[in-house]
């Protein structure tokens, strides 16, 4: 009780007049609420970073730390000298930029449109259905997509033939230059509903009174979407965008691996698959770790850069 009464006068006085320590004391609850988790984070996320030393060794699992052979920057030099690395990097960046452009904006639009539906049972059903593909594994989805695009009775070719748009079935999956598009669209199909949930939640945080007021003013639907909904979810939009930009180089390899085939390999091989094939699968843990470090450094640079840019433009930021 005494503790609590101490708090009273402190909050009443304007903050800038007091010293830092005083302020820290006032904010002791904020420290209490966050410091345990910072320690937690240190243990589970920062401590294992000693593993990065592997990148400077020729690591073998059976040896103790002292017995490992140190090789300096050899693994990094090897990586940057490998022409193959630049090809997988190109593919990775191409697909992640396309994924960001489509896989980020469309779910936002979808969420906003869904919010415009007034008939609640319909809205709820569509929302539920739309995220179902998220639970279907990529193996299954890739199977469905290759069958749809097949030249042997695939539905897409059948439709195009029936409309007389083509006279020979198109080998969609054999064309390297189409592969990025196919991956992006498949990903959109699978994850649109799921990714839109976060924006829906943000939209439901907007005060209904704002909409009521706008309605009274006679604002049209589009205007309300533009002037109330979008600004209302701006913090979420920006944070999601900044966090995603940091992930541009790590997009996994599952979908590319399952949708790809030997004819489109020059377009389908991505960084994470490269790490698997030339790192872990060959027992080259050090090489894999070196790629991981490069990847992290790129990611953090991208993150800090985009954070700064968006802070300047929109005043929203992560840090």
């Amino acid at each position: 009780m005494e503790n609590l009464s101490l708090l009273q006068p402190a909050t009443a006085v304007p903050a800038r007049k007091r010293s830092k320590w005083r302020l820290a004391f006032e904010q002791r609850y904020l420290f209490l609420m966050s410091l345990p988790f910072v320690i937690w984070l240190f243990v589970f996320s920062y401590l294992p970073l000693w593993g990065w030393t592997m990148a400077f060794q020729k690591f073998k699992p059976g040896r103790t730390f002292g017995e490992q052979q140190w090789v300096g920057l050899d693994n990094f030099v090897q990586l940057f000298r490998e022409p193959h690395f630049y090809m997988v990097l190109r593919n990775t960046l191409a697909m992640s930029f396309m994924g960001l452009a489509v896989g980020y904006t469309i779910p936002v639009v979808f969420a906003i449109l869904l919010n415009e539906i007034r008939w609640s049972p319909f809205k709820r059903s569509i929302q539920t259905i739309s995220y179902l593909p998220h639970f279907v594994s990529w193996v299954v989805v890739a199977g469905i997509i290759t069958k749809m695009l097949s030249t042997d009775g695939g539905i897409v070719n059948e439709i195009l033939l029936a409309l007389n748009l083509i006279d020979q079935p198109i080998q969609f999956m054999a064309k390297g230059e189409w592969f990025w598009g196919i991956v992006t669209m498949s990903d959109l199909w699978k994850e649109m509903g799921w990714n839109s949930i976060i924006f829906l939640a943000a939209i439901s945080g907007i005060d209904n009174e704002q909409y009521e007021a706008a309605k009274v003013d006679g604002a049209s639907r589009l205007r309300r979407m533009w002037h109330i909904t979008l600004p209302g979810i701006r913090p979420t939009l920006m944070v999601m965008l900044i966090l995603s930009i940091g992930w541009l180089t790590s997009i996994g390899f599952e979908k590319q691996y399952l949708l790809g085939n030997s004819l489109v390999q020059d377009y389908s091989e991505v960084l994470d698959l490269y790490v698997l094939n030339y790192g872990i699968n060959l027992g080259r843990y050090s090489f894999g770790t070196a790629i991981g470090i490069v990847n992290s450094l790129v990611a953090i640079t991208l993150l800090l850069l985009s954070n700064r840019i968006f802070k300047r433009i929109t005043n929203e930021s992560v840090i």
Partner: protein
Amino acid sequence: MRMQRKINPGELAFETALYLFMIVVGITTLYPFLNVLAISLNDSTDSVRGGIYLVPRIFTWDNYGQIFTYSNLLVAFQNSVLRTVIGTIVGVFSSAMVAYVLSRKDFIARKPVSLVFVLTLYFSGGLIPMYMLMRDLHLINSFWVYILPGIVNAWNIFVIRSYMDGLPYSLQESAKIDGASDLTIFFRIILPLCKPVLATIALFVAVGQWNSWFDTFIYNSSAQHLSTLQYELMKILANTTAGASSADAARAGDPSVAARVSPESIRAAITIVATLPILTIYPFLQKYFVSGLTLGAVKS
């Protein structure tokens, strides 16, 4: 029905287009799931022929029967439920707490703490150091390895924080003037207002917990009583795949032992078994983020 005001033509066109679009989205996204359902209910040998779309050709429950003969499934299911429930409650609560602290623009350690959190999203020490850490913390062959490492997740924190940033600051300010402490503000004002985003994060954490099998594989694979549903399902799938068509099956297999069902049917049945429990909790969470909020109610 509810639209009592007169509707202008533009509005009508918009409504029609909107509903049509949503119906198309609904059909295209429902298809894969229905397809999987149909395959899971079709005779497995027949499924190899392909061409099953929305209805099974030769109906059977055998694929499910095959899954439910595995003995460890019940224990695994219990563990999955337990880790999902505990993991979600702890994860959401702690993330919300940190998110609130970081949403306070006046918090003096805001920047460094934010940075410390956000960086963790972009690096990892790798599998071997992680394993050694868990071993040193005595978390190998322990249920808590499912919960502890994931207690705070930076992504969840920043999503929640961004939502909090959207809330009017005036609410907090007036509470402060009334003499409320930071804790009070968090519990009394912020948490109730954050229901939509908390429900969303709860969904994400729950699905993540429910679907994960890698931690079982790495840390708990030798402790059968700690197995999880997804891990057991992975086992069934791997076994079917290996048994159906691999060089080792040909080399080592006893040809007198009958072949199991095909991987495609088992995979389909597994997808359904793994997804249904999560789908049943969905409506309870959904109600929080599909309907709007009226702040007025909280203000008073």
